[in-house]
């Protein structure tokens, strides 16, 4: 399992009710269900991935986060997870609001566009950056709204969203992000993981 998923799983206590938005093939869901007795649901847009989840015995709803989160009642999950997908929505702000309406807390991870390898790529190669977390070409990437850890940090603050925990991940290294080290983490982290609530 990806290191990112391990970090997410560590943020969630046992026996909670969790919704994984954009749950893909259900790897994280299965881990949470088997290891932390989580009452887990998934929302996934791809029919193939939905079938993979069903084959793992997971409860998943085929749907689109922008349209289908509204059917869930307020605060009906302890945690809502959104892994590396926020930047792919037409309206990320709306999705973020929905995550925090449906979940008591949300865990949002973002591929960091401020990561030094990304900056380096654009600066020296002069082409759109391609890295481990940003593997697609400019013309076939699903990402519409790339942001940096710093952008996201400022954005949630401006929306009066409380950051309970913010972590920077670079391969296997996990560290805490705070106001004072934000610039450094924004340069050296590949991925930002935020536990937020409103």
């Amino acid at each position, binding site marked *: 399992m990806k290191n990112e998923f391990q970090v997410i799983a560590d943020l969630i206590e046992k026996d909670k009710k969790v919704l994984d938005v954009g749950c893909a093939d259900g790897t994280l869901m299965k881990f949470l269900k088997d290891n932390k007795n989580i009452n887990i649901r998934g929302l996934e847009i791809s029919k193939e991935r939905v079938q993979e989840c069903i*084959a793992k015995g997971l*409860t998943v709803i085929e749907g689109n986060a922008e349209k289908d989160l509204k059917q869930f009642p307020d605060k009906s999950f302890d945690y809502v997870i959104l892994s590396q997908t926020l930047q792919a929505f037409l309206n990320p702000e709306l999705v973020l609001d929905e995550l925090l309406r449906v979940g008591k807390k949300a865990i949002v991870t973002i591929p960091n566009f401020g990561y030094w390898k990304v900056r380096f790529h654009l600066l020296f190669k002069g082409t759109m950056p391609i890295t481990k977390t940003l593997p697609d070409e400019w013309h076939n990437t699903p990402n519409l709204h790339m942001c940096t850890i710093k952008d996201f940090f400022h954005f949630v603050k401006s929306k009066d969203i409380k950051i309970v925990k913010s972590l920077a991940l670079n391969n296997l290294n996990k560290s805490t992000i705070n106001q004072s080290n934000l610039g450094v983490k924004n340069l050296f982290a590949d991925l930002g993981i935020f536990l937020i609530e409103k």
Partner: protein
Amino acid sequence: MNTEKNIKTLIVKEPLKLDCGKTIKDFPIAYETYGSLNSKKDNAILVFHALTGDQFVTGINPATNKEGWWSYAVGPDKAIDTNKYFVICSNVIGGCMGSYGPSHKDPNQKIFGTNFPVITINDMVNAQYNLLDHFGIDKLFSITGGSMGGMQVLQFISNFPDKSKTVIPIATTSSHSAQNIAFNELGRQAITADSNWKDGNYTSNETNPGKGLAVARMAAHITYLSKKGLQEKFGRKLQEREDLKFGFDADFQIESYLRYQGSVFVDRFDANSYLYITRAMDYFDLAKQFNGNLSEAFKNTNAKFFIISFTSDWLYPTQENKDIVIALNSIGADVGFVEIESDKGHDSFLLDVPDFLNALKNFLDKSYEEN
């Protein structure tokens, strides 16, 4: 129609009060079973049939000598694996394969015809509930069915919220739409316009309203397929001829196909039953039973739901299936949903659609493992 032999029947002694106000008792429910009930009695699946189905889910139907209506899905090693599960299916009341219906005789030994009480989906499931007692099953492992079978699934879990662990409504709706009612009315009008119908008082000795029933079947059959599916299968291909004949014989293959579908249907189905069962579907509105709030229908159940729709089904489209998902999510129920890609229209659930059959199998087997 009814080949009395080969039909297993449960006589329900207990009076059943119908939605129309009448009470029936000592009435027969014809059923069939597949696989075997285990000692814990926790492997039973109750399958509900659609409008023109019957209890003969799989294998050779003794009445028609053809494959059962859900042979693709039910059988040894199939999606609903009869090596593992005990499958029960019964003919709905109002039907014509042995369960109490309009072709039965009243206490005066006269065939009911349209004197048979109008029945509802609710009446159908209340009647079938007696099968649980009959087999000594406290809780079913699953209930499933497509189309009208799905309506029965929804009604059953609403009426008996703790009687099934899992619930699989397929290609269905919680409320019959104006378009659904319109198509059913077309079929009924075709039957009642046949001079042989005689206000429902035809007997099996006389001529049946076969022409009207065949037209009803033809019209309905079109609604079960998709435009694309029809186009791919038939297009404008001609039926055993080189050119148009400038007449009204079946020039096109699609005409011939529909005529054939109509003619084989009248050999196995009773016209009055067609009226009764389509009426039951039209009256189905589960939300209305709960003052317009569909979620209320499911608030007492802890069952695990899995809802399946098909992309090309325009009779019970995905949105109507999703409305059920939404109602369940709004009360925090355990519900999964998938829309299966298929060009085969509403009939997809009856056909060899691997994505559908795999999803059904995986859901059942994984849920059973967790038992």
